[in-house]
C-alpha cells in the first residue's frame, strides 16, 4: 500500500489537485439538505454521462449518411453483439434525462432555490433544459426513419412560418432545398459536437455555482430571503448546522444515481431499443408519423389549436415561455422560499403538469387523426344491418365506400375525428342529416359533389336507422304540425 500512497504523492506534487478536491468534497452543507429531495441534479448528471458513453459507443457503428444511417441502425439492432442494448440504453437514457431534468427543475422551483443569490444558476439551468430538449429532438432525427423524415418536415413547416426569414431558416435547417443527406449530417453535427459541447460547458458552470454559492438550504416557512442579509445568514447556518457534503449527504445521491441507472437498464432490457420504423423513403406515403414521448404534447396542441391561432402560438408561445423562465429569478428574487407559503407557485406547477399530462395522454390515442384504413378494415356491426331494407343496406355500403368510417366510429370501431354515429338518428332529423352530408360543416368536408342524389338518399336512410332500440329517432316537430294542419284543412268540417 505504501507504494500506492507514494505514487499518489508523486502525482499530486505535480498536479496539486488533492487539496482543492478535498475542499470541495468536504465543504459544509446545511444538514437538512441531505435529503432525498436533493438528489435529482446529480442523477441528471449521471444520466448525462451515461448518454455520453453510450453515444460514443453508438458512433462506433452508426453512419451519419442518409444512404446508410437506417441500415447501420438495423445492423446495430440485429448484427452487432449487444448493439440493440446500447441503442436501448441511449434511447431510454434520453427519456430518463428529460424526465429527471424536468423533476429537478420543479423541485428547484418549489424549494425557491432560484432566488438570490442563485439567479444565474437557474438561468444556466434553463439553458441546460433547452439543450436537453435539443438533444432529444436531434437524437430523434439521427434515428433516420420515417418518423424522423416526416418529423423534420413538421419542423420545417413550423420554421417556415416565421415572417420574412422563414424560408431561409428552413434551408439553413435542412442544409439544402429538401430533407436529404445534408440535413442528417448537420443534425449529426449538432447532436454529437455542438450541443454536447455546450452542455458540458454549461454543466460545469452550473456545478461551479452550486459549489461557490452553496446548496440551497431547506426552505422553512417564514424564513425570508433578503439580499442584504442572505449571505451572512447562510454562512451562519452552514457553520452552526453544517455537515461535510462527503459523506454526510452524498450517499443519497449515490444510491439514487445507481437506482436510476438500474431503471434505465431495466427499461432497455425489457422494452428494447426505439425503432427504427420504416425506411426514410419519401415516396412511401402510407405513414402516420408521431413524435417521441416528450414532444407528444406539442403534437396534441398543434391539432387542437384553432387554425388562426396556430402560427402566433407556435412562434410567440415558446419565446414567452423562455422569457418567463429567464425573468423568474428577477421577478421574485427575494421573499418566501417554502412552497407552503407560495400557493401560486404550487398551482402553476400543478396546472402545467395537468396540461402537459392531458395533452400527452390525448396524443397517445390521437382522436383527431382519421383512421386511414377504417373504411375497408372495420366492418359495419351486424346489429346495424339486421332487418334493414335494401335501400338502407345500400346506404351502409356507401357509408363504408365513401370513407365516412375514417372519421366516424360505429360500434367503437373507426375514426374519432367526427362524432361516433351509433345514435346519430337521435341527434339529427332527416333534413339535418341531408344538409350535413351535402354541405359539411364543423370539421366535416362537404360531400355534395361526391354523392349522387340516389347515394345521398340511401346514405341518409341508413343513418336514420342508427338509434338505440327503445329510443325514437329525431323528428322535425314542425313537420308533424304542418302535416296535421294540411290534413285538418282537408278534413270536412265537423257539424
Amino acid at each position, binding site marked *: 500500500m505504501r507504494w500506492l500512497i507514494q505514487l499518489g504523492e508523486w502525482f499530486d506534487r505535480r498536479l496539486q489537485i488533492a487539496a482543492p478536491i478535498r475542499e470541495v468534497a468536504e465543504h459544509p452543507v446545511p444538514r437538512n439538505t441531505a435529503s432525498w429531495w436533493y438528489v435529482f441534479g446529480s442523477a441528471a448528471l449521471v444520466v448525462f454521462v451515461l448518454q455520453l458513453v453510450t453515444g460514443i459507443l453508438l458512433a462506433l457503428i452508426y453512419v451519419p*449518411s*442518409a*444512404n*446508410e444511417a437506417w441500415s447501420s441502425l438495423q445492423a446495430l439492432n440485429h448484427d452487432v453483439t449487444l448493439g440493440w442494448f446500447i441503442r436501448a440504453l441511449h434511447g431510454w437514457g434520453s427519456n430518463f434525462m428529460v424526465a429527471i431534468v424536468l423533476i429537478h427543475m420543479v423541485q428547484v422551483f418549489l424549494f425557491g432555490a432560484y432566488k438570490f443569490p442563485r439567479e444565474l444558476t437557474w438561468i444556466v439551468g434553463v439553458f441546460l433544459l433547452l439543450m436537453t430538449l435539443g438533444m432529444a429532438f436531434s437524437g430523434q432525427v439521427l434515428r433516420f426513419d420515417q418518423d424522423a*423524415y416526416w418529423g423534420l*418536415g*413538421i419542423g*420545417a*413547416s413550423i*420554421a*417556415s*412560418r*416565421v415572417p420574412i426569414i*422563414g*424560408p*431561409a431558416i*428552413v*434551408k*439553413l435547417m435542412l*442544409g*439544402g*432545398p*429538401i*430533407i*436529404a*443527406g*445534408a440535413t442528417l*449530417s448537420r443534425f449529426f453535427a449538432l447532436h454529437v459536437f455542438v450541443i454536447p459541447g455546450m452542455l458540458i460547458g454549461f454543466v460545469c458552470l452550473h456545478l461551479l455555482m452550486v459549489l461557490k454559492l452553496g446548496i440551497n438550504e431547506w426552505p422553512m416557512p417564514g424564513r425570508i430571503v433578503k439580499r442584504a442579509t442572505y449571505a451572512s445568514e447562510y454562512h451562519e447556518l452552514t457553520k452552526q448546522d453544517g455537515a461535510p457534503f462527503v459523506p454526510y449527504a452524498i450517499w443519497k445521491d449515490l444510491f439514487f444515481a445507481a437506482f436510476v441507472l438500474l431503471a434505465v437498464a431495466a427499461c432497455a432490457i425489457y422494452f428494447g431499443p426505439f425503432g427504427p420504423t420504416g425506411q*426514410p*423513403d*419519401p*415516396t412511401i*406515403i*402510407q*405513414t*402516420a*408519423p408521431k413524435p417521441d414521448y416528450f414532444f407528444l404534447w406539442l403534437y396534441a396542441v*398543434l*391539432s387542437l*389549436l384553432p*387554425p388562426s391561432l*396556430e402560427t402566433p402560438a407556435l412562434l410567440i408561445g415558446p419565446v414567452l415561455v423562455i422569457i418567463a423562465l429567464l425573468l423568474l429569478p428577477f421577478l421574485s428574487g427575494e421573499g418566501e422560499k417554502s412552497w407552503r407559503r407560495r400557493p401560486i407557485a404550487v398551482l402553476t406547477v400543478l396546472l402545467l403538469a395537468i396540461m402537459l399530462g392531458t395533452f400527452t395522454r390525448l396524443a397517445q390515442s390521437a382522436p*383527431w*387523426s*382519421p383512421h*386511414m384504413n377504417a*373504411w375497408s378494415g372495420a366492418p359495419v356491426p351486424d346489429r346495424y344491418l339486421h332487418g334493414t331494407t335494401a335501400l338502407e343496406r345500400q346506404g351502409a355500403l356507401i357509408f363504408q*365506400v*365513401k*370513407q*365516412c368510417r*375514417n*372519421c366516424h366510429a360505429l360500434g367503437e370501431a373507426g375514426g374519432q*375525428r367526427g362524432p361516433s354515429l351509433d345514435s346519430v338518428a337521435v341527434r339529427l332529423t332527416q333534413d339535418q342529416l341531408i344538409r350535413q352530408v351535402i354541405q*359539411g360543416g364543423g370539421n366535416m*368536408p*362537404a*360531400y355534395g*359533389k*361526391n354523392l349522387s342524389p340516389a347515394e345521398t338518399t340511401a346514405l341518409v336512410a341508413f343513418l336514420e336507422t342508427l338509434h338505440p332500440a327503445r329510443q325514437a329517432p329525431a323528428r322535425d316537430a314542425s313537420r308533424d304540425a304542418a302535416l296535421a294542419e294540411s290534413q285538418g284543412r282537408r278534413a270536412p268540417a265537423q257539424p
Partner: protein
Amino acid sequence: MPNENTISRRGLFMKLGILFNGLVATALAVPIVRFLLSSVTRGNANAYLSWVPLGPVGEFPEGETRLATFRNPYVMPTDGKTVDTACWVRRIDGEQFQVFAVNCAHLGCPVRWFPQSGLFMCPCHGGAYYRDGSRASGPPERGLFEYPHKVQSGLISIQAGELPTPGGSAALLGKRPPCAG
C-alpha cells in the same frame, strides 16, 4: 514611471497583436459564414428549382388522380432514398392537369388520396382537401401546394426542387387555391 498618456512598446505590440488577430478572424469569418449560409443563398437565387419530367401524359387517365414520383433536381451523393419525392397528379381532362405536393399545408405530413370520396386526407392532424386541392376541413389554413406544370410533346413536367412549406417557396405559393376557412 510611464505616465498614463504614454504607451509602452510592449503594450503597443500587444494591442497591435489583438488588432492583427481581429483582422485575420474577420477575414476568416467571411468564408466561414458564406459556407454556413450557402444553402440559404443558393435557395434565394432559386437555383434549386428546375423542370422535372413526371412521365408521358398517357400514364395519367383522365378524371383520375394518381401518385407519381420524381427525382429531386438537386442531388448529393449521400442522399440515398431521400432524393425521390412523391406528388399527386390530377388529370382533369385533355392537357388540363393539377399537380399537388404530398405535403399537407398544415405541417407537411403526407396526404393520401381517396378516389371514392374524392378527398385527400392527412393522417397527422386530420386535414382534408377536395379533389381540386382546396381546403375541405381540419387545421390547414389553405389548400394543397400546387407545383407549376407544363405539358410538352406528350410529357408532363413540374417545376420542383424545394420542400413545400406553408411559409416558403414562392413558386409553389403563387397560385393559391380558394381557401374555405
